[in-house]
């Protein structure tokens, strides 16, 4: 296991992009457009500006903490107790995100391609791959991710251009959606969509060159923003102009409708393969981050053991029978507000208190 490998600029950017765009595979894009309707573009620009401002603030607040992630900072702020608390919160957020994505996607795979098989085999397929990837090490993960992300971006572009040519783009108007209140006040809860803020705080100690941190954050943010926007636009075009239809998985239905003339059609299986690879990469990074947090919390040296525990826990969680309505509630409410609280309240309060403490200490000395 080579988990002390330090990543370069491009690798770091691609890791953040895969972490933030993978959630599109679950039904989050539909929940987003369902909140704001045709005001999707304006709302996404609006929340994009808010998220970006917060990220710049976050970079500024993190400047004083050299080579530290959110766990290290919480230790400096509130000692071991806060460190454990922060670690557990981070693990909860990561596990829940991974659970929702894996559960949602494996259900779709089962429904569409393996209806005669038990979901346990599909979950095992994912979990084993994630386990093996974490055994091989962070270096391989980061390097393989370099190969995956360009294909993900290409797939998003292909989906966008195929659907935009077919569907009447008038469903993107009126540009401010149902009402200003819905777009700017209710739609504020959509800030959960760009979840870069949840991940960049783990990035600093993994970097080869810490001075690139600001650049990495901004570039990865812009790429993720564009990718998510393109998917949101086609989701709005395809689903939100039809009030009686609510897709249980919008991404599958999106890729199903992709065709270029009558020669290239039914390429959904190709896209699903890409989604599978994307999910592998995403889950592997999530498990890697959980490993790191556990290691820091309890000073464990054997990372293999933590990988086993994390993967087994995720696997067991996914086996828990959960109805579609419960999954909808988890995705649309629990995950949405959890990410908002974690990114905009929890992380920032730790950073602000940390900065405040440092200033007091500096004034004293």
């Amino acid at each position, binding site marked *: 296991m080579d988990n002390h490998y330090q990543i370069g600029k491009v690798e770091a950017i691609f890791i953040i992009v895969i972490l933030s765009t993978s959630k599109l595979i679950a039904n989050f894009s539909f929940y987003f457009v369902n909140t704001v*309707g*045709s*005001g999707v573009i304006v709302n996404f620009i609006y929340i994009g500006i808010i998220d970006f401002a917060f990220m710049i603030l976050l970079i500024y607040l993190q400047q004083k903490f050299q080579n530290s992630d959110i766990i290290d900072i919480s230790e400096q702020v509130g000692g071991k107790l806060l460190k454990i608390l922060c670690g557990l919160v981070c693990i909860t957020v990561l596990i829940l995100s991974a659970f929702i994505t894996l559960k949602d996607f494996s259900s779709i795979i089962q*429904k*569409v391609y393996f209806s*005669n098989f038990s979901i346990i085999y599909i979950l095992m397929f994912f979990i084993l791959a994630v386990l093996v990837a974490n055994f091989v090490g962070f270096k391989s993960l980061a390097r393989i991710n370099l190969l995956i992300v360009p294909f993900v971006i290409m797939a998003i572009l292909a989906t966008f251009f195929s659907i935009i040519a*077919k*569907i*009447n783009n*008038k*469903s993107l*108007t*009126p*540009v*401010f*959606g*149902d*009402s*200003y209140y819905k*777009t700017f006040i209710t739609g504020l809860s959509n800030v959960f969509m760009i979840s870069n803020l949840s991940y960049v705080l783990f990035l600093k100690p993994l970097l080869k060159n810490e001075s690139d941190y600001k650049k990495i954050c901004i570039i990865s943010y812009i790429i993720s923003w564009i990718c998510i926007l393109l998917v949101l636009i086609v989701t709005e075009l*395809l689903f939100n*102009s*039809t*009030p*009686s*239809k609510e897709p249980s998985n919008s991404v599958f239905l999106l890729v*199903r*409708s992709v*065709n270029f003339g*009558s020669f290239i*059609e*039914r390429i959904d299986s190709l896209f699903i393969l890409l989604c599978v690879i994307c999910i592998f990469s995403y889950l592997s990074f999530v498990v890697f981050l959980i490993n790191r947090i556990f290691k820091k919390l309890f000073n464990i040296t054997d990372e293999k053991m933590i990988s086993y525990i994390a993967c087994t826990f995720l696997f067991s969680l996914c086996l828990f029978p959960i109805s579609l309505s419960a999954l909808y509630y988890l995705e649309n409410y629990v995950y949405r507000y959890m990410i908002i609280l974690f990114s905009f309240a929890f992380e920032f309060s730790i950073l602000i208190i940390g900065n405040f403490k440092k200033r007091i200490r500096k004034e004293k000395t």
Partner: protein
Amino acid sequence: MKKNFFLIVLSFILLISLTGCENSSIGIDDYYFVIGLGLDEAENDYIKLSIQIPSNPKNSSSDASSSQSSSYEIYSVEARTIEEAINILDNYLNKQINLSHCSAIVISESLAKKGIDQYINSLNNNVELRYNCQTIISSSTAYDLLEKVSNSGEAFSARLFDYLKNTTNYTGYTIESSIGTFAHDIDSKFCEATAIYTKVNNDIIQTAGIAVFKDQYLVGNLDVLESIAHLMVTNKLNKCFLTMDSIFIENGKIDFDTKLYKKTNTYINMINGSPFIKINVFPEISILNSGTDFDYNSSYNVEKVTHAVNKYYERIIKNYLYKISKDYNSDIDCFQGLYQSTFLTKEDFSKINWDKNFQNSFFEVNVTSRIYSSNLFNKE
């Protein structure tokens, strides 16, 4: 050594388990691949589902030129829903019905008038069905249309369905109507659905315009000239041929083909609560035949023909627009979508009450055609 042995064993396991051969009960021979699916109404709120499936070629050696050559059989069943009907057929035929090669969904006019939302949703949810499978409305029964495919001269009915769709490119007599866009439009908030309309005459199937829907109900159909007008208004006209009375000779005719040299412009205003829709169309005309008395070298003559063509198109397009608004109250040209784009919020747009007022629309059509080429090598 141990690692290599492990990898070899793993490769064998993967080879056997991932080829799909482990479950020998499901192979390609165990499916019936449906080419066309028909829906008719039956008694007691039942539907009659008909499937057209290829059967073995009668003489494969004599017809080796095409691998697709085949005869086909039609099976029908009455049931309450599509899924139930497919289930009964699965049981009856002892093979699983597979819709992945289905080229057309044929719905009878009488069933379409009663509303087809639930059937379209059911089909659209079927993962086997292709997104671009065509939706066809038959003036007679769907079963009749599927049966008449055998008289079309086509050895393989999927080709015929493709031809029906492709005619839009060179005749403009109908539109392309994939199940994906049809299912989308049928539930759309600002655009009504359309489908290919076919007639069965003397055992021959022919496209006869466009089927017009209001919500999920078929409200009428457009003839071929109105279909051309629809394609012009929606900017989807590829090419079409028309014949009109000659302005030079009594009882003479002028043949010309038309393309659009510029995109159609549409402007919408509300005047006294009624939509005023102004449409500017820009056709490019090539005269194919006009009799012996027409001198192409005279700019005066060309101007006269241009003027006549403009008037002709204005009349066709106006007739079409008043038909969809007054007779059918169906906004198949998505005027609502265009007009709502001029508002900032839906709250503001809802005050217009478009659904109610669309029927009161009045239109101004301006056609600016240009004769680009006579397309003739010899004067007649």
